[in-house]
């Protein structure tokens, strides 16, 4: 499996905070309740939890992206 990383769509995020409960290894909440995501590639061990966090977000604001995503113009 290719290495992936987590990213938040900040427009969609409504600070429900489930992601930080499901993946505290990589996601913490700021003082307003919005997730701070560690952008480093995910280790194999965390993949299952990461997918669970992504699937649990009520606004579908948490995304898994290819770690080597190209830079846009």
């Amino acid at each position, binding site marked *: 499996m290719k290495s992936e990383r987590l990213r938040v*769509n*900040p*427009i969609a995020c409504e600070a429900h905070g489930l992601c930080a409960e499901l993946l505290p290894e990589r996601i913490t909440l*700021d003082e307003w309740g919005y997730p701070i995501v560690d952008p480093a590639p995910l280790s194999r061990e965390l993949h299952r939890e990461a997918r669970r966090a992504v699937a649990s977000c009520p606004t579908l604001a948490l995304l898994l992206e290819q770690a080597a995503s190209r830079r846009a113009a």
Partner: protein
Amino acid sequence: MSVPAPTRSGASAAPSLPRLLVGLAGGGRSAGLDAHLERYGAHGASHVRADLIGLLEESGLTGRGGAAFPVAVKMAAVASRSGRRVVVVNGAEGEPASGKDRALLRRLPHLVIDGAVLAASAVGAREVIVATGSGGQVEQAALAHAIGEREGRRLDGPVRTFAVAVPNSFVAGEETALVRFLNGGPAKPTFTPPRPFERGVGGAPTLVQNAETLANVALIARFGAGWFRSLGTEDEPGSVLVSLTGAVGRAGVYEVELGTTFEALLRQAEGATGPLQALLVGGFFGSWLEARTALSLRLLDADLAPYGAALGARAVVALPEGACGVVETARVAGYLARESAGQCGPCVHGLAAVARALGRLARRERDDRRGDLLRWLDLVRGRGACRHPDGAARFVASALDVFADEFSLHARGRCSGAGRLVLPVPKRQEAAA
């Protein structure tokens, strides 16, 4: 913002400096098509159009809207796509300290449209949309007239040009916000990808370029990459428009060679009106620099980078002694917080917290929250869909550094300023706070 008449009038061949503003020698009116063609010649011989992108790559032209992205790379990305493609001229210029795109569109609409039509031909687009701020009736009239002149003479072949007014907000000029508005939505940024070059106006790959950038394209197509590179440095070639305001003899839009010192720039504006304490470089997303440091620096990102600064869209404000850096910073921070598109939590809450804390410091309420401020600045960077929070954070961080002594005075309930307000923070928004 006025454009002082160039000191040298342009030759009929390739002009030296001024380049962009050479067409202004005739006075304050918009240049008509005949005057334009007489001064610059017809745009784009077909051999130039064939490899305009290669020519632009050779020229090293970068986007003049603030991000300085290589123009040829962006154009090649759109050209490589198939189907309908669109070119958008970004003349929204929501930055209050900037007036250069308005000046260009008012006075030299044909030069900007030339560049846009050339770019359209190069990327395979048949539509050009020129976006200006909705308050800019003068630019809109000049554009409407220019478009009519070109249509009357069928100057642009299959390429059609339309003018659109966009809301006068700070973020409306961000390219995804611009595209969203042109697609019938609010003028607010979108999550990326897709970027406009992938999916833009009507879903078509869209080239969004700043008005000044396209005016340069029009000149490079005529006079060549070598000509363009005869000014500036190897890494930062060409000339740029600078919007200079604050404590200078003659505020206005100036065209200077990249690599000119800030001191020489101020001299063109008849110098400072008195001792300066700081320069704001890069507008409201820019950085404060101590005057004695800034004046000897050159207008180059290479010179500014060691100070964490960048030229951005080259809005420069001279802050005199007697003004208060803390008060000015609080005014702008309040404006930027109110101008948040309101879409991303960290930007909404973070910039509001920053603005409140700065407001209390500016009012000398003996509430020194500088520790919190630094933490909040860290918390907002990189956490919006666009770079609005990053720009605001850069601006405030530089103020905490450059005006450190004044912040300490304010924290003790004092202020060394004489109550003079300098930065052009829009009044309507300020009154609404």
